[in-house]
């Protein structure tokens, strides 16, 4: 079991890149793909990942994925890492759509609106927006780190 500190930052970015690339990679490819300063920096991260048991080195000196681990706060969607918060935001968006539908129906037939329901709808809207913003920010952070 990996700790969060072990797989974060540039190491995480290298790991995600290799998973996404799907083929054996060398330090130079990693350097270009992840925008690292030198092949030696890339190699250091590759070795770290190998030591964690996530990569394995083949006979040509290239690294391949040995194990695809769960990353905290993310889902693997195929070979791509997507923040869970984005899916949570879509879940709340579904709730929000249903609540707005109810409000629209009640408004169109002149049924009384309950203040509590309006309050809950606004809470759902806030939750949707917050989850979406946080999810996008986390996604961008994983890309930029």
């Amino acid at each position, binding site marked *: 079991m990996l700790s969060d500190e072990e797989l974060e930052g540039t190491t995480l970015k290298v790991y995600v890149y290799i998973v996404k690339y799907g083929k054996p990679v060398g330090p130079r490819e990693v350097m270009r793909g992840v925008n690292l300063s030198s092949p030696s920096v890339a190699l250091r991260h590759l070795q770290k990942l190998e030591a964690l048991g996530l990569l394995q080195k083949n006979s040509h000196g290239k690294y391949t994925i040995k194990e695809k681990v769960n990353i905290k706060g993310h889902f693997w*969607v195929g070979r791509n890492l997507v923040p869970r918060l984005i*899916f*949570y935001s*879509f*879940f709340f968006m*579904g*709730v929000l759509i249903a609540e707005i539908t*109810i409000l629209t129906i009640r408004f169109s*037939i002149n*049924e009384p609106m309950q203040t509590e329901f309006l309050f809950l709808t606004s809470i759902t809207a806030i939750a949707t927006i917050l989850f979406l913003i946080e999810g996008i920010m986390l996604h961008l952070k994983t890309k930029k780190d």
Partner: protein
Amino acid sequence: MELHFKVILGSIIALMLGIAATSPILVPNLALTTKIQLDVDVVYAYFGVQEFNSQITGLWRNSSNIYEYDLRFVSYFIVLNITNLSDKLAIIEEFEASAAQEILICNGTNRVGSERLRENMSVSPSNVGFNVEMENRIVTDFRDVSRYYPGWSQYLSPKTSRLIALTGIVEVSNTAAYDALQSGTIYLFGRVKGRPLGEGTSSTAFCLKHVQPQGVGKDRLYNCVISENQMWRMDTNGLDVYIETRR
């Protein structure tokens, strides 16, 4: 491309889960959109006029009032033809019949009825649903039958009609209203409100007619349903009426 497809798919699934999670409150509200279509027509109206001298002992009301007049009572028998145009069983909740010299109905931004009221009265606000304005009212009778009404069945089958009578007697103290009934044209207004059986929303239908009742002595009659050899028979519930052939 694969990423986009799978992320979009995942997002849609999450969205659907969110909607599904609210289904316990969403489904009953969706059912509220179910409505029935009703129709109503004032097919018969009989106004029996009785005048009493206000000086007669027992009918003397206020001798010090210089505006005191003879008492005028109007007994009425107004028949509504209510039709359920929809395919669902309807529950009748309310109905109403009115007669007045001028009637204007505001239904949203639509205004139908009295030209005089339309020109002279500002019915405000004009965009808030169903509103009836009357001037020189002769009769208004309203029945709320949404709860128990002895002997009355609320149900109206799909694509069927039902004749309902409103009867009573009122004092018409408004001289203009009385004169309109005696010598002029009047407006007849009918309204019915109903909802589908089970979940659903109430809907209202109305009709408005500008008629010149024919004179039967002092009484006045508007009839577009019953012929010479026919007569009304009223149900024991005092609301339903049927047409019978005279023997």
